[in-house]
């Protein structure tokens, strides 16, 4: 583990695998994730074996036994969910974890939760909803945030449009689209501070009083330029840093992995 890491393009699933394999649910980790609450990628569902069986999927879904590293592939049922993901909670601490990868499943169905289901279940916006954002103008994007349950974010963005002066760069539409897509795709994510850079890019900032600051600039390319400074600024010690320019989904995975790594060392 080095003090400095610069992220490069990597396969997100390999990062997910590694982070799940080395999962350590410490209190401190959970505290950290108050700033980046939902660490699960939207394309996958993380559940334990018992829940898989209870849901009736145990023998029907392609799963990867994360704990043992074994991979099982069985045909997907027609009603396998594509619009749902589960935010795994601390109840998973001591159980083997299974990764369901439903990207090939139809997107019109949902999962019926067992009576004693113990996880947060969040309906993910259908993928085409997020794709549609790439064709929206700024007002439509903000309206989309409202109907997606992000009225506060929409209000803040409207405010930022209102206070932009004539001599300042206009807010870049593709940057706004990228930010909105991240919020809608990652509904459990903690709301960041939202500001605008000199270049007109949306800048999202997550600050945690003890564990550091994460900054994401939403580029017009669709990637995010991100920097995580881990630890407090006023402790008189060098802070670990992770930075890079990646697709937002991958950036979240890298940040999550980095934080877990730091927690373990």
């Amino acid at each position, binding site marked *: 583990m080095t003090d400095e890491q610069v992220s490069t393009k990597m396969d997100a699933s390999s990062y997910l695998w590694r982070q799940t394999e080395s999962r350590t649910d410490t209190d401190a980790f959970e505290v950290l994730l108050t700033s980046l609450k939902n660490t699960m990628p939207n394309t996958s569902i993380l559940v334990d074996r018992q829940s898989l069986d209870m849901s009736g999927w145990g023998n029907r879904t392609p799963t990867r036994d994360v704990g043992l590293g074994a991979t099982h592939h069985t045909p997907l049922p027609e009603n396998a969910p594509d619009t749902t993901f589960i935010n795994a909670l601390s109840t998973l601490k001591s159980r083997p974890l299974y990764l369901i990868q439903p990207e090939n499943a139809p997107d019109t169905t949902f999962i019926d939760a067992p009576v004693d289901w113990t996880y947060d279940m969040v309906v993910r916006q259908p993928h085409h909803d997020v794709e549609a954002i790439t064709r929206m103008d700024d007002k439509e994007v903000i309206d989309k945030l409202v109907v997606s349950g992000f009225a506060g974010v929409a209000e803040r963005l409207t405010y930022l449009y209102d*206070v932009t002066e004539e001599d*300042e760069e206009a807010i870049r539409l593709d940057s706004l689209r990228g930010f909105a897509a991240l919020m809608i795709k990652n509904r459990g994510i903690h709301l960041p501070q939202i500001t605008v850079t000199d270049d007109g890019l949306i800048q999202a*900032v997550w*600050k945690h009083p003890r564990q550091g*600051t994460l900054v994401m600039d939403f580029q017009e390319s669709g990637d995010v330029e991100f*920097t995580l*400074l881990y630890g407090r*600024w006023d402790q008189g*010690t060098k*802070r670990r840093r992770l930075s890079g320019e990646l697709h937002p989904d991958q950036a979240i995975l890298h940040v999550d992995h980095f934080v877990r790594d730091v927690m373990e060392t």
Partner: protein
Amino acid sequence: MTADIHNTDHIVRCCSLRKLEDDGTPAPGAFRLRDNDNDCLSVNWLECFGEGDIDDNIPHVREDLRRHYTTKKSSKLAVLNVGVAKRVVKETRNVDISVRMDPRNDHRSHACVGGYATNNTDVATTLSEMVGKHDMHSAV
């Protein structure tokens, strides 16, 4: 005259409204060096106007800014102690930033923060973290 500003002195960064977070403190973007900044983040040297305290000298900075820029009503001034800023950036990022006087014509309180790379987010983030709500003042 481009001498270092003493560590006990203070600098002020004028921040536009859209670079302020909800609590009124600056986001990292307020301290990021841009390509056209020529390695100089423009700030104002507070003690340029005398030995008074921060509250005494802020009005002078406002006046100096008003004479040289179209300062927006909504802009805010973020105050940083020079020595603390240099020490914290050195300790946490191992970067030696410079804080130097850079008077321009009759804009005598103008100063530069430099020594870090254009578009560097590390130092900008660290500087922004150091500014608390009590360090913010109206720009007009």
